[in-house]
């Protein structure tokens, strides 16, 4: 399902500043990269290190954010989900596999990696973005069109 969304430059700039601030805080105080996939992975036994409690704390903060937002804004977070729960579970599994295999996600490689001027992250971001563009083009304009 294709839904038209409106370009929100101001809100997105504020959002970007907050994410940047969070990434800097985590790096400065904990020496950790704010990569969501990596933090999620560290909650599981096979990857669990000394930082499991911090990983859980981060994810709790992340999940509390939309609740805090709607409490203050007085409106639910705008979200349009077109996939079924089953499809989302499969997609989530693929995202988890891909990010562990690729060594990072949009936040780890895309935000933190690029900010650290890591060549490896630049390559990873360029590849997964290109694949994202190609996948959406294929699904929406070749198969769906």
């Amino acid at each position, binding site marked *: 399902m294709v839904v038209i*969304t409106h370009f929100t430059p101001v809100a997105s700039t504020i*959002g970007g500043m907050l994410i*940047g601030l*969070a990434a800097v*805080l985590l790096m400065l105080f904990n020496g950790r990269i704010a990569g969501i996939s990596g933090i999620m992975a560290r909650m599981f036994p096979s990857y669990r290190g000394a930082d499991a409690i911090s990983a859980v704390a981060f994810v709790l*903060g992340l999940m509390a954010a939309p609740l805090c937002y709607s409490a203050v804004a007085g409106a639910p977070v705008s979200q*349009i989900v*077109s996939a079924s729960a089953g499809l989302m579970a499969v997609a989530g599994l693929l995202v988890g596999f891909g990010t562990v295999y690729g060594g990072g996600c949009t936040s780890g490689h895309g935000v933190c990696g690029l900010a650290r*001027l890591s060549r490896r992250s630049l390559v990873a971001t360029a590849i997964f973005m290109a694949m994202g563009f190609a*996948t959406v083009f294929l699904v929406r304009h070749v198969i769906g069109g």
Partner: protein
Amino acid sequence: MLRPAVSLIAGLIFGLGLVIGGMVDPAKVKNFLDVAGTFDPSLAFVMGVCTENSIRI
């Protein structure tokens, strides 16, 4: 005790950034990837600003 506390606050700020930036909406993220259709460049703003800010700090 400091590390989990910092993580919790960082997670909260990160999440608020995602919510305010509209990046919790899959429709918005998919539209960023749909240059040939219903393109929405918001994601580039979110990612560009947070990367640029992190470099500066």
